């Protein structure tokens, strides 16, 4: 399993072994590294909208609501320090990890709610 160290101030998105992940930072809570693919059709969850009150993330493609509880439960094992972080990702130990900084829309507070269901 790849153990990957990164700087959480400059990296918020990564890809490894065909999977995509992004850093979900909720106000007042420890950050999570979660799968980016929506369980419905693989929509990009980092471009979704957070509904903090409802504890949900809304996928941008078909507005499916994903419970934060679910994301928390399936989050990757992660340690975050002030200026470095380390995550253990699934897959063979030598798979390359591509780390990036991307525009994340799934950030609090939810400015616009997705009205779909």
């Amino acid at each position, binding site marked *: 399993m790849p153990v990957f160290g990164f700087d959480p101030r400059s990296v918020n998105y990564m890809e490894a072994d065909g999977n995509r992940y992004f850093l979900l930072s909720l106000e007042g809570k420890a950050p999570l590294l979660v799968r980016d693919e929506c369980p419905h*059709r*693989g929509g990009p969850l980092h471009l979704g909208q957070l509904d903090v009150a409802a504890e949900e993330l809304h996928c*941008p*493609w*078909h*507005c499916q609501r994903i419970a934060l509880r679910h994301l928390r439960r399936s989050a990757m094992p992660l340690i975050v320090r002030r200026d470095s972080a380390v995550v253990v990702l699934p897959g063979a130990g030598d798979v390359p990890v591509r780390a990036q900084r991307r525009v994340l829309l799934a950030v609090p507070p939810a400015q616009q709610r997705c009205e*779909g*269901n």
Partner: protein
Amino acid sequence: MKHSPVKSSPPAIDLEDYNLFRRCLIQYGESELFTDTEEWLSHDNPYRRTLRPHVFKHLDYSRPLRREDLLTYNSLSANRTLLTIYEQDFVLLPDRDFEAKQTDFKEFYSNRSIALGAVVRPWLERYLFSFLDKEISITGGWTADTLKAYFQDFADSLRRSASNKAMEAILASSNREHAARTFLIQLAGDFLLEASAMGRNILGHYGPLQSELFKIVIDEYGYGVHETKHSTLFRKVLSAGGLAQTPHAYWQFYLTSSLLVNNYYNWLGRDHTKFFRYLGAIFQAETTFIHSCARMAEMMRAVFGREVDVRYFTEHVHIDHHHSRMVFEKLIAPALATHGEGIIPEILRGFEEAALLGQLAEQDFCDQVSWSDDNQALKALHPPIHAKILSGELQPSRQQFIEPRGELSVTHVHDGDELCHINSGVMHFVTGHERHTVLNAGEGIVIRRNRLHGAIIDSEQCTYTIHSIGDHRKCLSSASTHAL
């Protein structure tokens, strides 16, 4: 305020001149791509589609089609031509042997053809779609709320009643497989290019609506994975039905109404003044499709076996549930908020027009299934009517033809009933893909008005006579007169 052109006299080109249109139509038809063929199917060549252009000079498109005449030959011909013009906007490539088809490719996209099509297209659109203005009127004080209530009621009513006349017709046919194939052929005209008409609305700059429509296109195109693109899934359905999977292989077997529906969405997508109408139309289509796809999947399994690949249909049962909601919540509602309630009549018009055309196409399909099924009965009507012609009791106008073996009459329709009589030789009278009735010398058949058919000669030579009998039921009744 209405815009009127700034005059530069004399006009370089008078687009309102019917004669100009007519000359352009005839010239448009002067291409090898469109002439008659000696084969029923077009094999992996999306550029060749017979339009029977030699008939163009006899057709009158000066006055819009009336609803009663929707299935006439004029209409069939206008629809075949219009779809061809629309598809010159799309990239079409054969599956293989491009080199051998390269001249056709260049001709199909030639400036000559595109320019002529640009003059012809608006005339054919006006001819084909003007009747909708008379059929549907939208009045009164519509608001976002009343629109929502109406659309919600429509969606609920579909959930309550799940009947589908076309599927019932297939399952009741004496040749279910043929009827099912005929149905798939009608869908193929549109679904092998699925979402191309929608793609016409993707370009431009129109705010968040544009991105919302794009999300639907993402689904239609299978998230960029070819295996899941909707048209790829439809190819699998065609293969399950034992049919060829390249666009327009069955060009000759499209019913007029199927072409009309296909053209309608292209019309709305191409003419951007109809953008809001398009939104209403796709709300209707996406919502209806959820339910009809469930019925189609059942039909496919019933006819071709439980194992057939019906993912195209099951995918739409699922995703069009989303699309229906997305069109309303993410396109129509925000469009009203941004552009005002003044667009409601156009949205409603699109919704109503799509529904009406869908009903017309369903009826046309059901009628074609009975027409194919009833061929033996219509053959049995030949002797009594022909006897009346021989005795002089009926004196319809007639035309005689002498044709050699293999001569193929490209599929067409007649505007009144006709009696076909074989004087000598053998004809295969064709009513659909791989379905025909054999007519030997002395035999014949009643050809019902508006019903698609073709023929091929199966003897060294065949001489046959076509009598224009008008209405075969009147010919059979004892009260028939010489008035024919």
